[in-house]
């Protein structure tokens, strides 16, 4: 379970607010999709969950462990795939996976079987002896995903995980996510591909200008908009500068300065769960 409580992240001494007073609870056993336009604050939020960034205020708990106070324990319960797969490029595939297994202390008796299984699933058996720098973008992404899935921790946090994956790998990852959630564990991922979100997630959160504008199921979203339109149309309406859910500053200059959010305009519909 992931609990985010009134989390904000600011830079430049508070002049730039990347995430503002965001609260959210993601339950065990669900796949949660985080949607938002570029620069919405998705990666900042996921980086805070992964312990790469520290929140300016608020608390984050993973499985009841505070990420800031006890980062090592929290990180042992999560795996994170960032938005770039270009890491540790000089290591060979098997060296990279061994390093990850060592850091996560994956037991000796399961690691090689698990690596072989993942390599087989993602079609990377013939690539394990090559340096990651010789891989294509998609293969690098597969390697990052294999590294994340190898320790199989309680919580998966994936930032745009489908980017660059071929259809088979993308399908495999979605299956893995489903299996993981069905086993009572948690998956949180961000995506730009609304079609993926629509088909895979149990719940979706829409973030723009650092604020969570909507949280609910896709059906709730559809019901709320009283629309038979695609998720894409709803998303565009929700994240537009004139969105009824956006606070005053966003509808104005769409700036990211630290102003107090204005009251929601009269007559604007109440979202099912607005954070």
């Amino acid at each position: 379970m992931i609990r985010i409580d009134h989390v904000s992240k600011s830079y430049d001494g508070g002049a730039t607010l990347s995430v503002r007073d965001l609260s959210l609870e993601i339950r065990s056993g669900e796949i949660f999709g985080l949607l938002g336009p570029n620069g919405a604050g998705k990666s900042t939020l996921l980086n805070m969950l992964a312990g790469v960034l520290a929140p300016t205020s608020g608390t984050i708990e993973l499985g009841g462990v505070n990420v800031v106070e006890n980062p090592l324990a929290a990180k042992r319960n999560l795996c994170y795939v960032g938005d770039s797969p270009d890491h540790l490029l000089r290591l060979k595939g098997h060296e990279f996976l061994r390093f990850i297994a060592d850091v996560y202390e994956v037991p000796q008796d399961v690691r090689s079987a698990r690596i072989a299984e993942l390599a087989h699933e993602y079609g990377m058996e013939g690539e394990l002896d090559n340096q990651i720098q010789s891989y294509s973008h998609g293969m690098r992404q597969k390697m990052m995903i294999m590294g994340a899935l190898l320790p199989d921790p309680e919580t998966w946090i994936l930032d745009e995980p489908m980017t660059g994956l071929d259809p088979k790998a993308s399908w495999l990852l979605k299956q893995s996510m489903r299996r993981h959630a069905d086993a009572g564990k948690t998956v949180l991922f961000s995506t730009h591909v609304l079609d993926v979100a629509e088909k895979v997630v149990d719940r979706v959160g829409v973030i723009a200008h650092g604020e969570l504008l909507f949280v609910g199921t896709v059906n709730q979203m559809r019901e709320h908009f009283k629309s038979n339109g695609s998720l894409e149309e709803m998303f565009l309406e929700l994240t537009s500068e004139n969105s009824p859910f956006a606070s005053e500053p966003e509808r104005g200059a769409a700036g990211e300065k630290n102003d107090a959010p204005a009251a929601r305009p009269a007559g604007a519909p109440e979202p099912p769960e607005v954070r």
Partner: protein
Amino acid sequence: MARAAAQDFSWKQFRVMLRVIRKGEQHLDNTGMGLGGDAEATGKGVATKVGLGLRRVAMAVLYLILAGAFFALGIGLGAAGVTPYSAFSLSVVSLVTLTVLTGVYQAVNILYFVRDLSYYLTLPISATTIMWAKLTHFLALSVLGDLILVPVPLGCLFAQSAPALTWPLTVVAFVLCAVAVNLALVIVCVPIMRFSRLAHDKDRFSRVFGGLIVVLALAIGVGSQFALRGDGLASLASGADELLSGGAPMVVMGVICPPSLFVRQALTGDALGVASGLALMVASVALYALVLSALARRWYFEGVQSLQGAGAKSGRRVEGAELARATRSRGQVSANLSRDWKTMVRVPVFFNQFVLSSLLMPLYFVVIMVASGVLAFSEMEQAGVSVPLLLELVRTATATFTPGSLELAWCAVGVLGFSILLGFSSYTFTMGVSRDGDDFFFLRALPMDWRSYLVAKFVSPFALSTVPMLVLMLVALVVLGVPVVSGAYLVLVYLGATATLGLLSLGLGARFPRLTWDNEAQLVKGGGATLMVFAGLVVGVVVMALPALALLAGCLWLVIEPWLCLVLALVAFVAEGAALAWWVLGPCARHLSRLER
């Protein structure tokens, strides 16, 4: 015909390309020893701008110091009766030697190992235009660097009060030579990059040339031992003069640097001779430019295309028992050590700068010591002192280095002095964390034990910098017959000095890491890296200060017994080492665990 027409030169596109290349191109300088590629910091803060300004000033000062040194060298040559033409020949021969050894890599780096080239491939711009824009950029950088040698003949002119007109004439002649050498270099590079398989494996290619550059540094160090004795420099200058005077060497020089064939005429002839000499020099440069243009039209872009996506793959499958062996369980220190070592060895920049240099450093000392020794012995033999007798005299002196003696204390001071010099190479430790660059933030998302991470960052450079030198030291102690206990003490002092130096440097690097770089070369070259190398000397002084004071209190100021000063020096190292280890594994590790972009 259509193909050739498509590759026609366009002046308008040339200017656009040159502007783009000059302002925004990123090079993949894999050795870290090439030109350019030292992108400036991208931050906008005042501190960044001030830092950048300071670096520029420091680099300018460094350049001026070097130019001043060469000018002084030229004055020395002039005072020794060397003619300005011979001094000019020496600088041209040096230019050709340096360019042949290092220039191929620099040319390839700037003309081929550029990320943006794959984008240029998609643009409707002719290969000849792109090649000339890149070549102009390369020539500008190269000639600017080569100009550092001009002060040698200028100094000679100054010493001999030559007419004012000969000064600009010398500079123009040198620039023409520099341009011609670089053109010749690219003429060789174009077919190499089109057809050579080695050149297409960037890592191997970079390692080979990195090795060559390090060997060159060794050769210069050794050569200087001979050149700086007696009339060595004057002999070198007359040798260079002879190289350009006739026979096979002149032909070779004429092929590599055609203007050198007409230098004598341009510098020493009458007015008509000077004019015709200069005209011939310009014509030879123009001829090479035409040859290069023809070659580039045919092969430059084909070479660029063949480079895209090049890279070796083993094609071997690791599975079953082999996979199980390859992925055996390890602790975090071992895991980090293995990762760090593999990265350091496999990234050519890091290999050349941190591994090869560290390993060759003792060799450098050995060769220089042997060279100096041979010269000294030959001089002594001429004075009637035989080598065995000399060794006997030295052994008699070292036999007095008994435990607790004043002589041993002085010897320990010498070890400390030597260790301060090692501060120049302590940036291997300082760069430990910075080497990870953007990977650091990938590691931040893992359940990383940052103390293990830092221990691993200490072990590799410590082993690299200490073990070869330690072996050398042990050999010297045995050969010189230093008493065992005293020898062990000196070894302990050396280990204490290198360990504390490494710990402080590593800690400073962890507190102020430079993690935002685009390619590895940015980290190890340019003003920032140069300043860091010199800052290492200050770090060395800081850690040696306390033990040195303890030793000097016993052997110089004589306020404590020699044996006590020896003990206190060791105690100081132990205390410093413990404090620094606590600082590195405590506050520095915590700092890394919280470090954000």
